[in-house]
């Protein structure tokens, strides 16, 4: 008998505690598979955020640190500086990274820290029950924008990849989506690339996953994918923003 599919070694045996239809599990699996495939597991450590993926430290079967809300890139900076022989990634949601942790992500990127940041954008605070996120779309209803996000009052959603792409230091910035098997396969390639650059100590690498929140969007798994395709992808365009690896190879 031949094993053709198995749980990645970089995931623990724990069952994910995410809601039905949530894509965190897919993102976790892509990262874990990539770490396995690149043989990075023994040297890899990660940082979990505050938010729905707060328990990521239980799910990744490597050494993990749990950060205060938004501080993951600062922890990762301390970790990488303390153990330059090891590799570090953070895993953060949109509230964590693009609101309370804005300073930490911008400055870690600006220093060109040799870390990989995985940013899951589903346009809402999931863990706390569906409040408005910095990435909540215009007119989108949440529990704290019950009449729809009023951009004249609270501003437009923040496009983090575009923001970080104004900085000189980042090495790799790409936005991918997780809305279909084909998009997941593309996302996997980006994850592999970012972690390869991480392994090769090229510099700061950043991946944004456009994701969903069926529970707080009030949709089922498939509807939420359609909703994301229709509403999120036009605003958060899937593309590579920066790949210094390609520039350097020229």
């Amino acid at each position, binding site marked *: 008998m031949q094993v053709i599919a198995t749980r990645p070694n970089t995931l623990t045996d724990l069952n994910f505690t995410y809601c039905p239809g949530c894509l965190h599990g897919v993102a976790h699996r892509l990262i874990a598979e990539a770490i396995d495939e690149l043989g990075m597991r023994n040297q890899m450590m990660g940082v979990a955020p505050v938010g729905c993926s707060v328990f990521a430290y239980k799910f990744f*079967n490597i*050494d993990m*640190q749990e950060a205060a809300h938004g501080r993951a890139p600062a922890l990762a900076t301390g970790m990488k500086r303390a153990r330059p022989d090891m590799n570090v990634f953070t895993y953060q949601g949109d509230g964590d990274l693009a609101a309370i942790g804005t300073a930490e992500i911008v400055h870690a990127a600006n220093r060109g820290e040799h870390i990989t940041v995985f940013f899951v954008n589903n346009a809402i605070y999931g863990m706390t029950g569906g409040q408005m996120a910095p990435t909540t779309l215009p007119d989108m209803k949440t529990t704290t924008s019950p009449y729809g996000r009023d951009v004249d009052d609270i501003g437009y959603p923040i496009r983090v990849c575009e923001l970080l792409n104004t900085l000189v230091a980042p090495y790799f910035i790409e936005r991918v989506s997780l809305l279909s098997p084909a998009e997941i396969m593309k996302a996997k390639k980006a994850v592999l690339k970012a972690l390869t650059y991480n392994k090769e100590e090229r510099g700061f690498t950043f991946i944004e996953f456009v994701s969903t929140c069926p529970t707080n969007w009030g949709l089922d798994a498939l509807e939420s994918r359609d909703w994301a395709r229709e509403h999120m992808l036009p605003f958060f365009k899937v593309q590579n923003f920066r790949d210094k690896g390609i520039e350097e190879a020229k």
Partner: protein
Amino acid sequence: MAEKVLMKGNEAVAEAAIRAGCRLYFAYPITPQSELIEYMARMMPKAGGVFVQAESEIAAINMVYGASGCGRRAMTSSSSPGIALKQEGISYLAGANLPAVIVNVQRGGPGLGDIQPAQGDYFQATRGGGNGDYYTMALAPSTVQEFADMASLAFDLADKYRNPVVILADGLLGQMMEPVEFLPAKTEAELKELDNQHLDWCCCPNEDEPNHHHHEINSLEIDPVVLEQHVLRLGEKYDKITANEQRWEDYNINADNEILVVAFGTASRICKSAIDELNDAGHNIGLVRPITVWPYPYDAVYKAVGDKVKKVIVFELNLGQMVQDVKIAVNGKVPVDFMGKVGGILFSTDEVKAKIAENLEEAK
């Protein structure tokens, strides 16, 4: 004996930290501790260490968290308003059982306050400071020499108990120059030993397949029963620290003391000068100087209240914070009086003398 060098407290504690094996320092500039961050910026690279000027105090303490979670000696420093910003991270360090050293070169507060020496962060340093049930050890130096010596002590205590340790200095100790004699720098072998002391729990390479370890650095326990056990274990640790680590200095404590003075840090220096002058004039005044303000040396203060002591007077550069601990220590045995100065202003020796003399009169 090592050579004595004339140095500012801010620079002396930085040099001493490097000698004590600190190779990771993260901070943000603030007066009156900027010489510390500047010294680290100059000297850490020469020591093969890491210096990062963080984007904020919050980022700096979280960088310390990350480095400490990798088992390495890490430090940050700041002054009062900046220390307030670090309290989030200090609470997380305590909750995650992480060692770290935090230097607070106190200035006047609240809020932006001023940039002169003060002791207004006593409550913050001795009552945890952030959210939740926790304590940090708080060491209060009174000379530049002691400030420097505390770097090594703070790292040793932090590693021993896996708990953050605060060095509670002030702007005077940071800015003042005094002769300092340094402990020898850790050798390569000693540094290696330090690096390996926490491998059983910290983030570190994972070479032992299939016995792959999974270390979690974390202060989250969502199950109340599990969190209860975690906090109770923290409580046991604080009990142990309280039992083992109280430090203080007795100054002219004897059975014939008429008045007992209690003061820490810079305030205690001024009190000593006043006491010397009064004792030269025939009085008998004693002083207890808490060196650890947490754990507080309650028993030492109580025992110093001799049978002839009519009153205990507490001198602080704040509105009266430690006086609460002194009252707990004295436990009603004699009255406790207080004199404070705020706004970053020091009391003069004459003012301290006058306050003590007034009580000597009353006692007659």
